[in-house]
């Protein structure tokens, strides 16, 4: 499909994402201005506070955005899933440039001018309003401009906490190996950053002393800048209004918040529950594509009711037990501990496993006659490996895996986004990756899964994690979950994944067909 066709088919959704993106950026920048400029003014007058406060703002800006989202989710009022959390995080990032430039701008006012102002008998407030702020304005605007451009970038990550925006396309594009989606997310974001940079840059000039002289001579720049800004603000306001209108419509009926992790299979499993609930008259709010540990945090904090998980992941990554290989033992232990620790119930297994699949290119496997991981060990010394962040760090991931097989690679394995590892393997950038066994692209890209002949990887049975209070509140939930017990085979799951990842069908459609076929 050409990019042009893609746009023709998806422009409505894309505009919605642009609007969400814009309103997140504008609201957060506006809040940061309202907090940041007075703080900057205060710091320009209070030397003792200056360095500590700027230091804190500095540190806040170094927190990785996904980690910050993670901290925020369990917090009352400012946390949760969705736009609020994203805005709080964006404000945190936008504050530093605004505060710093306000301080720099005010302190940078010519000493002679300030002394003249004092000597003319101006009060501190008059000096601030009539002399310091006007003279610092273009420097302050530079800060706002930097903050806004940063916000446009960070907002793409806000998709990971369900805040929407163009990041939705970028994450989806990475996952589905789809350049159209990547472009549809990245190009408007880049244009937005450029537009913000350009229009605020013009405003900055307009408010500089040089700009004042220009303006009297009838400059055009400021008019363009103001027009662009007004347009941005109106679009943002409209987006916010639309979002609010939608939000209130569904707030009444019995509601279940269904969430998923940020990969296709998780979305499909969540969608299966969502559609099953909807056919039973329950209102479903979808919070898909949450990154990292966010689904777990959100579930425990009661921000979501349910999400699909794997027993092995729960056992090792969340409960932090050393990996074991008996599926029954893992399931029982997980079920017991989740009930005790989190008041969360673990559903019956769905019928398939999604374990780590050690993958090599089909050509290599055939040439070298590779069947098992042990077969690959002698060749690995001349190979490079690429693994997702997850695999590199978890207890049942790379460290234990390489020890169990005595694996050594030519270099330290590359750590990259999981979906990128498939691309890296296909394009010969790496020679071995750890993918998912139900990944639809395995066959499509002609990869071969090497058998785990030493039984290293623990079992990863798919289950749903549900809050106990949600089960009590919504009886239909238990009914749906019992229907789904043992209902999906590994082959079926691979096919569903393939429909989305390779055939580019929408998960909603794929799930609808599957449910019809199954006769639920």
């Amino acid at each position, binding site marked *: 499909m050409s990019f042009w066709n893609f746009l023709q088919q998806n422009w409505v959704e894309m505009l919605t994402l642009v609007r969400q993106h814009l309103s997140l950026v504008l609201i957060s920048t506006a809040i940061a201005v309202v907090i940041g400029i007075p703080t900057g003014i205060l710091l320009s007058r209070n030397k003792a506070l200056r360095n500590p406060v700027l230091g804190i703002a500095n540190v806040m800006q170094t927190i990785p955005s996904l980690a910050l989202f993670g901290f925020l989710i369990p917090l009352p009022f400012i946390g949760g899933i969705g736009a609020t959390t994203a805005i709080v995080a964006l404000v945190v990032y936008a504050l530093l440039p605004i505060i710093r430039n306000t301080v720099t701008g005010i302190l940078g006012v010519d000493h*002679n*001018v300030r002394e003249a102002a*004092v*000597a003319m*008998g*101006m009060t501190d407030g008059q000096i601030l309003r009539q002399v310091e702020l006007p003279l610092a304005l273009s420097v302050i605007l530079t800060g706002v401009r930097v903050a806004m451009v940063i916000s446009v970038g960070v907002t793409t990550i806000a998709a990971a906490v369900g805040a929407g925006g163009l990041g939705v396309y970028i994450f989806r594009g990475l996952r589905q190996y789809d350049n159209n989606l990547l472009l549809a997310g990245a190009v408007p974001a880049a244009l937005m950053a450029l537009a913000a940079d350009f229009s605020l840059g013009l405003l900055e000039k307009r408010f500089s002393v*040089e700009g004042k002289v220009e303006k009297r001579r009838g400059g055009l720049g400021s008019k363009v800048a103001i027009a662009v800004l007004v347009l941005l603000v109106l679009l943002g306001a409209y987006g916010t209004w639309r979002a609010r209108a939608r939000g209130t419509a569904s707030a009444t009926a019995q509601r279940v918040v269904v969430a998923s992790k940020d990969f296709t299979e998780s979305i499909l499993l969540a969608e299966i529950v969502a559609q099953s609930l909807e056919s039973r008259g329950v209102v479903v709010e979808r919070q898909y594509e949450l990154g990292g540990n966010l689904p777990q945090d959100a579930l425990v904090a009661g921000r979501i009711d349910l999400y699909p998980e794997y027993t092995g992941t729960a056992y090792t990554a969340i409960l932090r037990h050393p990996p074991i290989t008996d599926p029954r033992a893992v399931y029982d232990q997980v079920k017991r501990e989740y009930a005790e620790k989190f008041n969360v119930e673990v559903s019956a297994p769905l019928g398939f496993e999604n374990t780590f699949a050690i993958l090599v290119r089909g050509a290599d496997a055939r040439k070298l006659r590779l069947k098992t991981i042990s077969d690959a060990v002698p060749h690995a010394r001349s190979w490079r490996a690429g693994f997702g962040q997850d695999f590199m760090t978890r207890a049942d991931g790379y460290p234990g895996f390489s020890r169990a097989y005595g694996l050594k690679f030519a270099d330290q394995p590359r750590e990259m986004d999981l979906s990128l590892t498939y691309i890296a393997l296909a394009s010969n950038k790496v020679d071995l990756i750890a993918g998912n066994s139900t990944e639809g692209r395995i066959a499509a890209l002609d990869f071969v899964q090497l058998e785990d002949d030493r039984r290293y990887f623990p079992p990863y049975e798919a289950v749903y994690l549900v809050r106990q209070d949600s089960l009590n509140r919504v009886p239909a939930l238990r009914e749906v979950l019992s229907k789904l017990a043992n209902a999906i085979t590994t082959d079926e799951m691979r096919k569903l994944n393939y429909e989305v990842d390779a055939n580019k069908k929408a998960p909603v459609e794929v799930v609808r067909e599957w449910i019809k076929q199954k006769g639920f």
Partner: protein
Amino acid sequence: MNDSNNSALVEFRDVSYSVPALPAPILSDLDLTVQRGETLVLLGESGCGKTTTLKLINRLYLSSSGQVLVEGKSTTDWDPIALRRRTGYVIQDAGLFPHFTVADNVGLVPSLDGWEEAKINDRVRELLNLVGLDPVKYAERYPRELSGGQRQRVGVARALAAEPPLLLLDEPFGALDPLTRASLQRQFVDLTKRLGKTAIFVTHDLREALRLGSRIGLMHAGRLVLLETPENFLKSDEEHARAYLETLKLQVDDEAGGSK
């Protein structure tokens, strides 16, 4: 104002000023009375305390000991804002607000004092004419569009705007070329005579002091070492005064030698 000519407008009583960072006081035991209507020039090298003396008058600084009185009232008893609005202040490079037009700069203190707009406009026009700038041509310009001499004129006009009884001038003509400088000095003498203003003028240039001052206060290392009329200053035997007069002679000799 002429009939109160002989009463003191500014008085220093045994004033010292020091800052913690410096071991020696910047100003020591200053006793000085400035009469209404006179132009007192404070003369001295950089760092002798003459600017400090000026800033003690409009309370940009507060004395460490002793008393500074303006119109008979200690500066510590004045509301600093009221005191400064009654005191015109002109500094080197004028200290004009770069984001204000010439008219806004000149009309600043009247507008702070809440004058009506029409009255401010009249006053601005009057003052620009007074300092020799055509209001039609210059009122709406920004300081960066003026020459150094023009900026300095605007600085003087701004200081005069709210009709303060006292003018403080800190090397206002220091950065100007000799011709512009001479022209502004002549105008300044004219103005102070015509308006009957009291002025305290800081400079390190003896010729300027001789040209402008009704009295000259010579300062050295934080002390007032001589206070005389220009005529008596020329005849003085005081060592620092002699050193200054030597430079005058040298300059004259140089100029004479050059013309041969």
